C-alpha cells in the first residue's frame, strides 16, 4: 500500500526564517568551498565547486523555521468520542505551533546544530536537539511524548483514596447506582521517552556509541480484578502507572577491511513505583475467612533489571567469503518484596507468616551465532548459519507454602515451575545467478526447541523447512520476488503435565505442524510515468496430528498499487489490499464425569477479513505558486468467531448439555476512513499559506464492549463492575490553516517537517 502515515497531520509547508537572505547564504557557502579548495591543494580534486544550479534557497548559518496555524472543528466531537480519535495524538482546536526548527551551521555548514520540535505544548509533542559533524560525531537529545488513550467514556463509582487504592462507599451502592456512575474522564497513559545518543567516529576504524534512554510512564489503564470463589465476580478498575525504564547502551566497534568487531554493553532498569492495586469488593463489606475479603489486592509488575553483553565479529576471507560470529549474554534480576498472600485479615493461617519474602529472581539468556557466506564464483553464493539461544531461570524461590484462593480459601503448598527452554536454528542456502537480473535461491532451515517436561507437554520439537525463491531484480523497470517454503514440525512424545488436561489436545506452539508459504511481489514501470506493483501472499499451517487445539491457520493477502504521473504537474496513485485469515480450532468441553464425551466437542472457525484502500492526488496548478492535493484511506475489518458442534451434545445433565452447546460469537466490524485535502499558495518562494481539510470517519461494532453497563448482576451473589468504556464512533471534520516560510533546500539537513 502507499504511505501509511495518514494519521499524522503532515504539513508540507516548512517555515524558515533565515538570518540572511538565501542568496547571501549561497554566496557564503560557495565562498567557503572555494576557500577550502584553495587552501588545501592536497584535496583539490575532491573539493568541488558547487555548480551554479544550486537552488537559491540555501540559507545562511542561522536558520529558524516555524509553522504556525489554527485548527478548528466543524461540529465538535463529544468528550466521549475522543477515545479512538486521540488514541496516539492530541488534536485539540485552537492555535498551533506545529513545527519549529532552529539551526546553526557555521562556516560551510559541515558541522551543524539543530533544534526541532513539533506539536509544541501538546501531549504528543516532540523536541529534538542534534549536533553533527559528518564522519566525526553525532549527538542527539530526543524527547518524544507518546500518549495512549484507552477510552474517554469510562464510568465508575470507585474513588482513588491513594495511588492504587480504590474504595466504594458503605453500604455498597446497588446496581442501579453503579449504572448512574459519572464519566471519569480520559483513561490514558503517557510515555515520555528521553534519549541521549552520542556517536563518535574518531577514525575510520573506530566507532563509539552511547545511548541513554529514560522512558517515564504515567497515567492509568484499565485492568480487571477478580474476587472469585462462589461469588465469582470481578471489577474493572484502573491500573495506576508510575514507572520508569532506564536503558544505557554503550558500544565500541573496530573495523578494518578484513576484520570488524563490536562490543556492546546494555543495562536496562525497570522501576515500578506502585507495587499493587487494591479495590473494594462491591458485594462484601466485612471480610470473613470463607466469605471473601472486603477488598482485593493484585500485585503489579515488579521492578527488575537486566545486564546484557554482546560481542559481534566479522572476518573477510578469500573467495569473497565472510565469517561472522556473535555472543550475547543477558542476566536478569528481580527481587521485589512479595505482597501478602491475601488482603483478607480474617484468614489467619500460620503458614502465611512462612511465605517467602521475595523471589530472588534470576534468569539468564545466551544467544550464540555463527554464519558463513561465500561467493566463490560471481554467479554462485552460499550461506550457512547456526544460532543457539537458551533461557535459564535460576529463581531461588519456587515452593510457595500456602496459596489463598481469591481471598476466601486456602490451598496447600505449590511449586512455581520455571520454564527453561532452548532454541537452535540452522539455515543453509545457495543462490545461483542465472543471468544478471535473475537469481534462484534454494535454502533449508532447521529449528529445534527444547523445553522442560514439568512445564510443557512436548519436550522437543524439530522443524525442517526447505524453501525456494526467485528474484528478478537489478533493472529499473521491473522487479519480481517470489518465494515458496514448505516445512514440517514434529515433536516427541506428549507428556500430560496435569490430570485435568485433555491428553488429546495439542498446544499450537508444540504440536506437529505442516507449514506452507508462498509470497510473490512484483513491481513494473512499463512506461516512465506509470508504476504498477502487486503483492500476493498465501500461508497455510496445518496441524495434522492434533485432535484438539488449533487444526489449521490459513492466510491470504492480495494487493495492488498504481501510481501515475500524468504530467509534471499532476500525479496520482491508488492502492487496494484484501487480507483473509482463517483459524480453525477444535475443543472438547470436559466437565464432571463428562470428560470424554465425544458429543461435547465444538469447532471454532475464526475468520478475519481486512480490506484497505488508498488514493492520492497532487496537482500543481501554477508552478511555484499554487498546489493542491489530497489523500484518502480506508481500512475496513470484520472478524467472526463462528462456533459449531459437529454432533449435538447429549449424555450429560441438561445444564451440562447446554454448556456444551456452541453458539457463534457476534461478528465485530471496524471501519476507519481518513481524508486529507490541502491547498497551498506560495506568496514567495519561501512564504506559503496552507489550508487543509481533514475528515475522519470511524465506526466499530464490537459486542464485547458496546453498550455494556457499569454493573451487571448475574445472580444475587455475582456482580461485574466494568468501566463500560468503548471506542465510540465519530465523524470528525476539521480545518487547519497555517503560514510557513520554507526554503526548498535546508543546508542543515532535511527536517521532519
Amino acid at each position, binding site marked *: 500500500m502507499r504511505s501509511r502515515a495518514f494519521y499524522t497531520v503532515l504539513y508540507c509547508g516548512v517555515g524558515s526564517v533565515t538570518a540572511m537572505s538565501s542568496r547571501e547564504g549561497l554566496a557564503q557557502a560557495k565562498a567557503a568551498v572555494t576557500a577550502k579548495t584553495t587552501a588545501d591543494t592536497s584535496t583539490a580534486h575532491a573539493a568541488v565547486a558547487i555548480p551554479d544550479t544550486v537552488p537559491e534557497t540555501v540559507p545562511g548559518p542561522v536558520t529558524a523555521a516555524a509553522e504556525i496555524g489554527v485548527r478548528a472543528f466543524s461540529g465538535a466531537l463529544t468528550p466521549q468520542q475522543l477515545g479512538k480519535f486521540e488514541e496516539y495524538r492530541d488534536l485539540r482546536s485552537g492555535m498551533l505551533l506545529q513545527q519549529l526548527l532552529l539551526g546553526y551551521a557555521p562556516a560551510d555548514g559541515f558541522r551543524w546544530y539543530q533544534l526541532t520540535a513539533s506539536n509544541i505544548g501538546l501531549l504528543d509533542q516532540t523536541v529534538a536537539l542534534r549536533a553533527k559533524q559528518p564522519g566525526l560525531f553525532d549527538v542527539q537529545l530526543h524527547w518524544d511524548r507518546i500518549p495512549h488513550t484507552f477510552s474517554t467514556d469510562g464510568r465508575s463509582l470507585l474513588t482513588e483514596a491513594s495511588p492504587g487504592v480504590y474504595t466504594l462507599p458503605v453500604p455498597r451502592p446497588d446496581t442501579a447506582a453503579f449504572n448512574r456512575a459519572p464519566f471519569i474522564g480520559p483513561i490514558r497513559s503517557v510515555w515520555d521517552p528521553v534519549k541521549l545518543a552520542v556517536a563518535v567516529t574518531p577514525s575510520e576504524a573506530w566507532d563509539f556509541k552511547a545511548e541513554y534512554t529514560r522512558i517515564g510512564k504515567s497515567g492509568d489503564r484499565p485492568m480487571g480484578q477478580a474476587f472469585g470463589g462462589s461469588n465469582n465476580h470481578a471489577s474493572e478498575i484502573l491500573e495506576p502507572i508510575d514507572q520508569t525504564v532506564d536503558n544505557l547502551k554503550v558500544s565500541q566497534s573496530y573495523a578494518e577491511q578484513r576484520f570488524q568487531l563490536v562490543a556492546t554493553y546494555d543495562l536496562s532498569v525497570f522501576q515500578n513505583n506502585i507495587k499493587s492495586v487494591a479495590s473494594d469488593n462491591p458485594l462484601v463489606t466485612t471480610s470473613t475467612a470463607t466469605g471473601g475479603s472486603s477488598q482485593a489486592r493484585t500485585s503489579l509488575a515488579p521492578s527488575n533489571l537486566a545486564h546484557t553483553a554482546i560481542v559481534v565479529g566479522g572476518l573477510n576471507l578469500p573467495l569473497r567469503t565472510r565469517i561472522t560470529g556473535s555472543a550475547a549474554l543477558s542476566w536478569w534480576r528481580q527481587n521485589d518484596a512479595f505482597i501478602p498472600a491475601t488482603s483478607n485479615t480474617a484468614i489467619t493461617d500460620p503458614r502465611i507468616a512462612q511465605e517467602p519474602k521475595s523471589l530472588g529472581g534470576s534468569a539468564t539468556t545466551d544467544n550464540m*551465532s555463527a554464519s558463513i557466506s561465500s561467493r566463490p564464483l560471481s554467479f554462485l553464493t552460499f550461506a550457512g548459519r547456526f544460532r543457539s539461544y537458551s533461557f535459564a531461570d535460576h529463581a531461588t524461590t519456587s515452593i510457595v507454602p500456602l496459596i489463598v484462593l481469591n481471598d476466601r480459601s486456602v490451598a496447600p503448598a505449590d511449586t512455581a515451575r520455571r520454564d527453561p527452554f532452548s532454541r537452535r536454528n540452522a539455515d543453509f542456502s545457495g543462490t545461483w545467478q542465472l543471468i544478471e537480473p535473475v537469481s534462484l535461491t534454494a535454502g533449508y532451515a532447521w529449528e529445534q526447541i527444547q523445553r522442560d517436561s514439568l512445564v510443557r507437554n512436548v519436550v522437543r520439537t524439530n522443524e525442517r523447512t526447505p524453501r525456494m525463491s526467485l528474484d528478478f531484480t537489478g533493472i529499473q523497470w521491473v522487479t519480481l520476488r517470489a518465494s515458496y517454503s514448505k516445512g514440517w514440525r514434529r515433536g516427541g512424545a506428549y507428556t500430560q503435565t496435569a490430570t485435568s488436561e485433555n491428553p488429546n489436545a495439542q498446544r499450537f506452539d508444540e504440536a506437529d505442524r505442516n507449514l506452507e508459504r508462498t509470497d510473490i511481489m512484483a513491481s513494473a514501470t512499463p512506461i516512465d510515468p506509470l508504476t504498477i506493483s502487486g503483492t500476493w501472499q498465501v500461508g497455510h499451517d496445518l496441524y495434522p496430528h492434533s485432535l484438539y487445539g488449533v487444526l489449521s491457520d490459513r492466510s491470504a493477502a492480495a494487493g495492488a498499487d498504481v501510481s501515475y504521473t500524468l504530467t509534471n504537474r499532476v500525479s496520482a496513485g491508488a492502492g487496494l489490499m484484501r487480507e483473509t485469515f482463517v483459524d480453525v480450532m477444535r475443543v472438547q468441553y470436559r466437565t464432571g464425569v463428562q470428560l470424554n464425551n465425544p458429543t461435547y466437542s465444538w469447532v471454532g472457525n475464526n475468520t478475519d477479513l481486512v480490506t484497505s484502500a488508498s488514493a492520492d492526488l497532487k496537482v500543481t496548478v501554477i508552478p511555484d505558486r499554487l498546489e493542491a492535493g489530497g489523500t484518502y484511506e480506508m481500512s475496513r475489518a470484520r472478524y467472526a468467531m463462528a462456533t459449531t458442534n459437529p454432533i449435538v451434545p447429549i449424555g450429560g445433565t441438561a445444564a451440562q448439555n447446554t454448556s456444551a452447546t456452541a453458539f457463534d460469537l457476534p461478528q465485530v466490524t471496524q471501519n476507519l476512513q481518513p481524508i486529507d485535502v490541502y491547498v497551498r499558495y506560495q506568496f514567495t518562494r519561501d512564504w506559503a499559506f496552507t489550508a487543509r481539510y481533514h475528515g475522519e470517519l470511524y465506526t466499530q461494532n464490537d459486542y464485547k464492549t458496546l453498550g455494556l453497563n457499569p454493573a451487571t448482576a448475574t445472580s444475587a451473589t455475582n456482580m461485574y463492575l466494568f468501566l463500560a468504556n468503548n471506542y465510540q464512533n465519530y465523524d470528525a471534520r476539521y480545518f487547519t490553516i497555517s503560514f510557513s516560510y520554507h526554503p526548498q533546500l535546508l543546508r542543515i*539537513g532535511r527536517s521532519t517537517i
Partner: protein
Amino acid sequence: MRPLRRILFVLALLSAPCVAFAQQSAATPKPPAGFAGSASCVDCHKQEVAEFSATDKGKLVLSHPRNSHEALGCESCHGPSKQHVESGAEERGGLIVFGGKHPSPIAERNATCLACHEKTARMMWQGSAHESRNVACSDCHTLMHAESERANLKKPTVLATCASCHAQEANKQTRFSHMPLGQGKLECTSCHNPHGSPAPKLLLASSTNETCFTCHADKRGPFLWQHAPVVENCANCHDPHGSSHEKMLILSRPRLCQQCHQSSGHPIAPRNPKAINDFQFVFNRQCSNCHFNIHGSNDPSGYAFTR
C-alpha cells in the same frame, strides 16, 4: 563499586580508543590512474552534484574527506570515471552506477557500499535475509539528495521505505490495534535491523521477547508464577505489526486462550454470548476480566494470574 562508578568505568574503557585516535585526513595529492576527479563530473551532472553537495555525505566527500578514498569525491562510490569522461560519456568504463535503466550488478553496488560501511550495524549483512534475496543497498538508500531526515532513505520515512516490499506488515498499521508507527513515534528499525542480525526476524535484540522488553520492561520479570508461552515468545499471542483484535492479539479472547487451555473446567466451554452465566467470559476483557496478570504474577497467591 557503586553502579554509577561501574558505568563510568565501562564508558571510560570503551571510549579510550576514541581518544587515542584523532580524526585523520589522509588526502591524496592527485587522482590515481583511471580517476578523472570530481570536477569532471560537474560539467555534465550539475544538478546531481548540486543536490549531493548539500547532503552530509556530499559535504564529507566533496569538501571534507577524511582519507584518500573519500578524497576521490564522486568516484569514491562511482569508481574511476576517466574512460567515461574521455569518451564523452559514450562509454561507462569502470563506473559503478546505482540507478537509471542500466545499473551495475547488485553485488558490485553493494560491495562498493560495504567497502566503507561493513561495520557496526551492517556487519551481518552478508548472508542476511535481505542480502540473500538480492536486495541492493540502493533499493532503500539514496545518497544523492536528502529525502529522509536520516539514514539517507529513498523515501521520507522508514515505514514507507519498508512498505515498498513488506506491504502486508506495513498495512497492519491501519488496523484497530497497532503501535504508533503511523504517528512517527516508532519506526520499523525500532525493533528490526534490516542489515542483518544474530536474532531471528532481523531483530535488534537476541530474541523477540528481549526486543519487546526494551520498552515493555514490566513484562520481563522473572515472575514467581510464569506463563510458559509468554516466557518463550510474545508473538505467540501478539502480532506487533497490528491486529484487528484488542491488544494486538492474533485472535480475540476467549478463543485465543482456548487454543491452548483445554483443561477441564471453565476454560473450554464454547460460551454462549446470550447466557448470563457466560457473561464474564465473553464480554469486556473476557478471560482477562479475572486473569489480569497473564504475563506473570509476583503475588504468592497469583498462580492463576488473577492476583
